[in-house]
């Protein structure tokens, strides 16, 4: 193989360091004026693709994002990390509630268009924690999948993947073309440096709309209610073990 074409997906989400506030209408969280950045797992995905290119395993990295106008900034960050060109599927008014199945359908169309050998996505977005897009996309394409990857090795059209699973680590072998989702321990993402940010401004970002692609992105799930977790109450300090046992019995934790 002369080098793989890799399609990487990234999502613009509220920055992980921001203190989240529930909207007054309890249908979501406040996003206006709040700092956003690239989803952390997507940083791992981009970084992995860039490393593959440095090792000459990959020859081209295309980064794609579905989102509002500001998603362009997220794509630019990926370009500054080393991706070659970008695709921005810009959402129109009324399309903002884009759910994993819709994203998977959009990416399936992008795959049709760009014909990559490998798709790498972040394992889940930190705003909805769905962890579905990779799996749905693999299903739509009928491609093999390697999710929660913490090690990725390529040789001759086959990917050796170590997956992080509840019981520990699972090693699988997957034939290309395939869809992979990146986990946190896959790599340590690089910082975009100023010279690379400057260079990224010159890289191409192709813009298209959902209508251009011809995908039905109607949401299938409706959020009914979003609330804060209950406020933590002050603890009780007891003088000795016998009082502790008494209190635990009172509260029904002990018989």
């Amino acid at each position, binding site marked *: 193989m002369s080098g793989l074409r890799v399609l990487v997906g990234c999502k613009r989400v509220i*920055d992980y*360091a921001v203190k989240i506030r529930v909207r007054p209408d309890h249908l979501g969280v406040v996003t206006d004026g709040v*700092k956003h*950045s*690239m989803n952390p797992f997507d940083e791992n995905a981009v970084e992995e693709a860039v490393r593959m290119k440095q090792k000459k395993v990959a020859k081209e990295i295309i980064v794609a994002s579905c989102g509002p106008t500001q998603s362009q900034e997220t794509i630019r*960050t990926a370009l*500054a990390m080393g991706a070659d060109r970008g695709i921005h599927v810009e959402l129109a008014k009324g399309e903002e509630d884009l759910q994993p199945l819709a994203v998977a359908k959009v990416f399936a169309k992008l795959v049709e268009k760009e014909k990559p050998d490998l798709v790498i996505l972040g394992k889940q977005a930190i705003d909805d924690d769905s962890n579905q897009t990779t799996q749905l996309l693999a299903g739509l394409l009928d491609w093999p999948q390697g999710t929660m990857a913490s090690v990725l090795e390529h040789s001759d059209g086959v990917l050796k993947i170590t997956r992080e699973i509840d019981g520990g680590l699972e090693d699988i072998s997957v034939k290309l073309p395939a869809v992979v989702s990146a986990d946190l321990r896959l790599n*340590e993402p690089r*910082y*975009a*440096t*100023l*010279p*690379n*940010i400057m260079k990224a401004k010159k890289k191409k970002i192709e813009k298209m709309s959902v209508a251009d692609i011809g995908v039905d992105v109607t949401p299938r799930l409706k959020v009914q209610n979003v609330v804060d977790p209950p406020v933590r109450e002050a603890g009780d300090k007891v003088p000795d073990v016998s009082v502790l046992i008494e209190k635990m019995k009172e509260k029904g934790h002990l018989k």
Partner: protein
Amino acid sequence: NAEYFFFKQWYQRRVRGAFWQQVRCLSTYGKLTDHILSSIGDIVGPHNVTTSESARNLHGTDESFHPTQAPDAVVTPLNTAHVSEIMRLCHLERIPVIPFGTGTGFEGGVGAMYGGLSLALHKMTEIVEVNSCDFDATVRAGVTRHQLNDWIRADGLHFPIDPGAGASVCGMCSTSASGTNAVRYGTMRENVLNLEVVLADGTVLHTAGEGRRPKKTSAGYNLTNLFVGSEGTLGVITQATVRLHGIPEATAAAISSFESIQNAVDAVVEILQCGLPMARIEFLNSDMIAACNGFSGLDLTEAPTLFLEFIGSPAGVEEQAMLAEELCVGNGGENFAWATEHSEREKLWKARHNCWYAVKAQHPGKHAYSTDVVVPISHLPDTIVHCHELAADMDVPLPIVGHVGDGNFHCFLLSDQGCPEEVIKIKDFSRALALRAQSVGGSCTGEHGIGLGKRELLIKEVGPGAMSTMILLKKSLDPKLIMNPGKVIALDHLE
């Protein structure tokens, strides 16, 4: 005049005794009554005022060897207006106030020697603005340097000053902190553009003017650098505007051992004189390398070792590393190794990164103390030799780590907190070392500050003229002496 000044001090100490001074001071400070606390509760909300023992102990403790001195209460303001109102009240009632950032200081700066309240600033967490094109950022008192760096990572910028701890940016202003890359980026003194400060009487000021962030200015007195390093004794720093720098494009790391400390320092001098734009030059002595070998399972040669870091373009760092190799080898350097790839660099620098823990691991349970002096680089070898002479009767290894590019080094000493003789020996060592540093034109503190333990050394260091000027400034800005009393300048020099 100078002689009278020193005679007066001697007389007061000898005849009146320090104890009576303290008693007299204690009796003139106001008491933090429930009524006052309730008024403060009205300002910040009652849940932001606490007298719980654990909160008070936490806020009277830092990373120094000074024992905990708990305040009478801990107050957590949410904004500058709160701080101003609290100061106005405390000024009226003469209540000591100790600003508290992250409690990571090394010189006992947070101890409430005369009681009063700790002003816990950790809830003021706003990053007010970042101007990436202008390379500046403005942060409130509760923002730590890690939080700031996290915030600006996507812009290709970082705030490079890296004291070991996750300190707050305003706390770093307060102690004029510095880190391993001061040789490249300078210390806080060179990186603060503007400060918002609340004075003892509640006055709010902006040292360079509100909202201003000029890269350079000749406008009026340099108030910014008056408050940088003032350790909470002149006012409460509630906001800082700091310089940002570009994240390096490429980094290379190198390591080289030497037969003697003199050879290592000679190599450093030549490297600096060649104009190599070093990012970091760190020195570890044999004892430190031994500790690190044991802790991290390395097998470095137990000899004085330099750890170097270069930044720039990929071609640039390679060039720098090659030149540095030439200079090290030319000074008897051995085992020179360098790398550009991230994990390789981490491996080379592993000893340096873990040295604090490596030393603590030699005697788990003992408290670790770090000395802090600066000398002109040419005096590094003889000063370090002198350290070993001073430590001879302590019969312990003497691990030393130094930011040799600045002539600043730290000896790590372990002590059993329950063993007063050990603690006294360490204090004596530290004092003798500071005096030696001063005698060769250096300073008794490179980055940790004066705090509690180095007040007498400060007098010796700056001399009577500067000392009386500092006293004048302190008394003008804080006439009731409520701002972190007992730190930097002892109360008996102020009354």
